[in-house]
């Protein structure tokens, strides 16, 4: 008897996720699923709740309704440090720590007592096209280089889910294209589940197969990115 191929379980599932602060609803009933190797774009106007949603996904903020399941487990039962290692975040500004590129890359694993080997360090730098930058002081890096270090620093934690919060919006056009293509390669190569917040519809189409359009904290449209952004 022929059986249908089993659908792999979602690596990330947001269920009726919401957040209200002082009686004001910032986000309401957000539900979606994401599988390994899949990218989802969150688009919408400023103040629509895009970044609020991303902050809920790695629990930098607490949902006041609903929850998130990571590999089928309610993330409220996962220790925040462990959760945040698995759900990596790349922010709009890189916020590098004072010191060298190498110190920044070693930061995450060091928090759980792991030392990144020189081999892995070189590999990470190679992935973000910064080979030979290990001993550079981060104060002397360009905007694009800093964002690459930020990406490599997040990858050093070996996340299975990658959250990208407007990762290229603070960069010039040349750096923007470079970082975008770099992220696309990494997401595809490592089969990461990726949630991208962007105000740039063209970027959403280039980077993600599916999209959610938010307005006033609610999903007003979802589906293939091209349809959502051009409807």
């Amino acid at each position: 008897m022929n059986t249908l191929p089993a659908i792999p379980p979602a690596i990330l599932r947001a269920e009726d996720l919401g957040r209200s602060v002082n009686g004001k609803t910032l986000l309401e009933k957000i539900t979606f699923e994401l599988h390994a190797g899949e990218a989802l774009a969150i688009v919408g106007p400023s103040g629509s709740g895009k970044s609020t949603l991303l902050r809920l996904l790695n629990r930098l903020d607490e949902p006041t309704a609903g929850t998130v399941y990571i590999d089928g487990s309610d993330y409220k039962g996962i220790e925040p440090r462990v959760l945040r290692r698995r759900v990596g975040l790349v922010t709009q500004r890189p916020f590098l720590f004072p010191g060298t590129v190498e110190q920044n890359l070693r930061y995450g694993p060091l928090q759980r007592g792991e030392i990144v080997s020189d081999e892995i360090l070189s590999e990470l730098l190679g992935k973000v096209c910064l080979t030979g930058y290990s001993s550079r002081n981060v104060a002397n890096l360009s905007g694009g280089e800093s964002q690459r270090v930020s990406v490599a620093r997040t990858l050093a934690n070996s996340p299975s889910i990658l959250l990208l919060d407007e990762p290229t919006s603070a960069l010039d056009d040349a750096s923007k294209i470079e970082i975008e293509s770099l992220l696309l390669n990494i997401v595809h190569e490592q089969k990461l589940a990726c949630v991208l917040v962007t105000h740039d519809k063209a970027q959403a189409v280039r980077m993600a197969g599916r999209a959610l359009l938010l307005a006033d904290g609610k999903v007003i449209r979802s589906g293939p990115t091209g349809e959502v952004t051009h409807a």
Partner: protein
Amino acid sequence: MLKRIFTDPLHLVLAQALLAALAAIIVVSLARRRGINLISDALIAMGRGLLQIIAVGSILALLLKGPRWNGGWLLIAMIVAAGATSARRAKGVPGAFAVSTWAIAIGAGSVIAIMTALGVIDSRITSLVPVGSMLIANAMNTNGLALNRIRADVLAHTGEIETALALGAEAHVSVAPYVQAAFESSMIPAIDSVRSLGIVWIPGLMAGMLLSGARPLYAAVYQFVVLAMILASSGLTSLVSTLFIRARMFTSASQLMLRQER
């Protein structure tokens, strides 16, 4: 000159207070010409300060007639008032009043208690309350400086702190540089006071002791004793308050609560 005009000591001291306040008003009036308006703040602060010190003086006069432990109650009341005052420097920091009051109680209170038990501070009210109040007042200033600095640093470095959290750092690790900077900067006045003792300033306690006929060497060494106790109580207060406030800035899920309104 005033002594020739006012023969009654009470009239004389009121005239002295008026002239000293006038000097302060002239200075803040000059500042107003440069767009810095502190006149109402200065007037309220001076009026309040004068009333408070008269009230405390009157209470002291009454307590002097009572048992020694009366001094303890007065110091406890001072600690609570100091907690409320320095908590104002940490607007928006959750639990600032409780943190300040406990930090001052532990920092200044323990030094006062230990030093009194050891006989370094005389347990008579006339000695315990003035010396204790000096320790509490300095602990209050140190605490205010520490909280003010930590609040400003955390608000200015929210991105760095949340990046550290997002990389799996524990809450206390993510704010460690700012807690350390707050502690260090809050200790600058107390350390500088000891460092410049006798060179830049002769503190009021020593001057008072000299005026009341104490031997200069005894007055000098006792002043050092008081400043060393101030350093100890201020340091302990700052240490405790920065540790307490660090814990209060995060939820149990390591989420930073102190953030600019968005």
